[in-house]
């Protein structure tokens, strides 16, 4: 057991593949997952011991916690209430969640598993979508705003899905309301407490020493521990990921907190990279399953239908908000990438999942991993070529329905 060697393996391999992905102008998320797959359990198995696997997973978990904390911080309650944005968000959810859910049922997953698959398939990758909007110089166009607000809406849905999923996972039907109530109670408690203490903690965040960052981690881990203890007491599970999200949104209201954003982002980026690696590393590829025609068919169907789904929701949104089908198709292309949130969702579920509830967890997991890797790569391409794809699709539409657009 030598953590130093293992950490060297993780950081060096991620650095190499990460750099390669930047040079190729690709999303880096799949690069880190692939590094994990190659070096971890189902690949070369270079990580020295079970303790090391646990250690790296733990570092990765900090990344997920910080990601959700950051999303909470950036979350904008007020802006999202605007009807146009709500319409766009709901359309996106209704179309794409249904696609995943129906396909899950068709390939023989249980209801809960289909729900998990639908969540992972619905949610786009804010990281890839937003960086590609900036890199591809789309910010001047009106649809950029629509896309960005769609990402915000997806963040709320993600929080809700996580609360629902962790509550449903408690095992017995009778426990679901208890679990749900406990989670909501804790959320309200965090929001109230931070608001109460806001005057007291605000000056602490203004200090120039180690106190502010220490305070943040103390709050995150403190509340997570509280959630854990409540979970044990009530025989349910309250995810620290949910705690982090709401803690972040509560702290966003504290004056002087903005100063710390840069620090949080650096910590988040580092640990999130380790998370993607650890996700790939723990993943046991079922090669038998992968080779089976059923698996390949299911994966293909998932990829095609989910891309079509985003284009349909994009088209509806574009037509309604911008009065243009072509703009809508571009919205579809920009929101195609999937990534970090799908992985986070599946990780949270895996951690607390009760196996009786998830009879086909192996299939589900393999599907989502393969899906995210492919869609993050394909998605970045779609996002980059958004205008060309929009134009090409419009010319097809115009040929098929020449009278509709006169």
């Amino acid at each position: 057991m030598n953590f130093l060697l293992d950490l060297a393996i993780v950081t060096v391999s991620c650095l190499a593949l990460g750099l390669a992905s930047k040079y190729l102008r690709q999303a880096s998320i799949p690069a880190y997952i692939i590094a994990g797959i190659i070096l971890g359990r189902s690949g070369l198995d270079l990580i020295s011991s079970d303790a090391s696997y646990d250690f790296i997973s733990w570092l990765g978990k900090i990344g997920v916690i910080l990601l959700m904390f950051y999303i909470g911080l950036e979350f904008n309650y007020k802006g999202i209430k605007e009807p146009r944005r709500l319409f766009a968000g709901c359309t996106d959810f209704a179309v794409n969640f249904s696609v995943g859910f129906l396909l899950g049922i068709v390939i023989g997953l249980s209801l809960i598993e289909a729900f998990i698959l639908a969540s992972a398939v619905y949610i786009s990758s804010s990281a890839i979508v937003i960086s590609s909007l900036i890199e591809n110089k789309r910010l001047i166009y009106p649809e950029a705003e629509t896309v960005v607000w769609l990402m915000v809406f997806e963040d709320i849905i993600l929080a809700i899905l996580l609360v629902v999923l962790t509550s449903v996972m408690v095992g017995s039907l009778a426990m679901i309301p208890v679990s749900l109530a406990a989670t909501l109670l804790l959320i309200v408690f965090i929001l109230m407490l931070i608001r109460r203490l806001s005057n007291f903690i605000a000056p602490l965040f203004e200090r120039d020493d180690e106190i502010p960052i220490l305070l943040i981690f103390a709050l995150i881990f403190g509340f997570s521990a509280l959630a854990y203890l409540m979970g044990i007491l009530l025989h349910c599970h309250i995810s620290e990921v949910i705690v982090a999200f709401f803690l972040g949104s509560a702290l966003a209201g504290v004056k002087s907190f903005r100063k710390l954003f840069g620090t949080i982002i650096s910590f988040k980026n580092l640990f999130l990279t380790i998370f993607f690696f650890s996700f790939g590393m723990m993943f046991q590829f079922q090669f038998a399953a992968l080779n089976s025609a059923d698996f390949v068919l299911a994966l293909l169907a998932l990829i095609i239908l989910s891309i079509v789904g985003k284009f349909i929701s994009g088209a509806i949104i574009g037509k309604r908000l911008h009065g243009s089908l072509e703009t809508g198709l571009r919205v579809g292309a920009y929101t195609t990438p999937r990534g970090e949130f799908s992985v986070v969702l599946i990780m949270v579920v895996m951690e607390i999942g009760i196996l009786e509830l998830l009879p086909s967890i192996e299939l589900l997991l393999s599907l989502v991993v393969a899906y995210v890797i492919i869609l993050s790569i394909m998605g970045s391409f779609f996002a980059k070529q958004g205008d060309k794809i929009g134009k090409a699709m419009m010319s097809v539409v115009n040929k098929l329905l020449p009278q509709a657009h006169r």
Partner: protein
Amino acid sequence: MRISELPEIGTKYEIESPKGDKVAVIFLTTGEIELYVLESDADKPSVTRLTSEEARRLGSVLTGALLTIEQEDIEVSFSEISDLRIHIHLCPVTKNVVGKSIEDLAIRKKTGVTVVAISRKGQSIVSPPPETVFEEGDLIVAVGKREQIKACQQVILGQG
């Protein structure tokens, strides 16, 4: 001017000319500023990224303060008062003034120029009191008419 918020990206300020050209300024959360220009018939915008320092300079040009080429000199004029032209001049201290105060040098009495600020080791002293003593490496921000500034450079700083 349309202002819109782009969560996780920044704030967008957008203006459209009567011809249909669009100009957008985006303040990114990273602190940098992106300037977009999209001509009405172009399919791609031109984009450049500025630091906040560069943006401030560009801003002062756009607001009409003319930046002349000689040293760092800004001429300010107001549309209401057309005959008033004030120069704001930035000059480094010389041997002649180091160790002396503004009062000792009688800058205003001799030349009519007012010292409005001193930049010292990256810190700015705005409206320095008359007893302020110049130190090696200071930058002086002086305000006056063009002739007054010139006089100040010759008589006080001992240049040209």
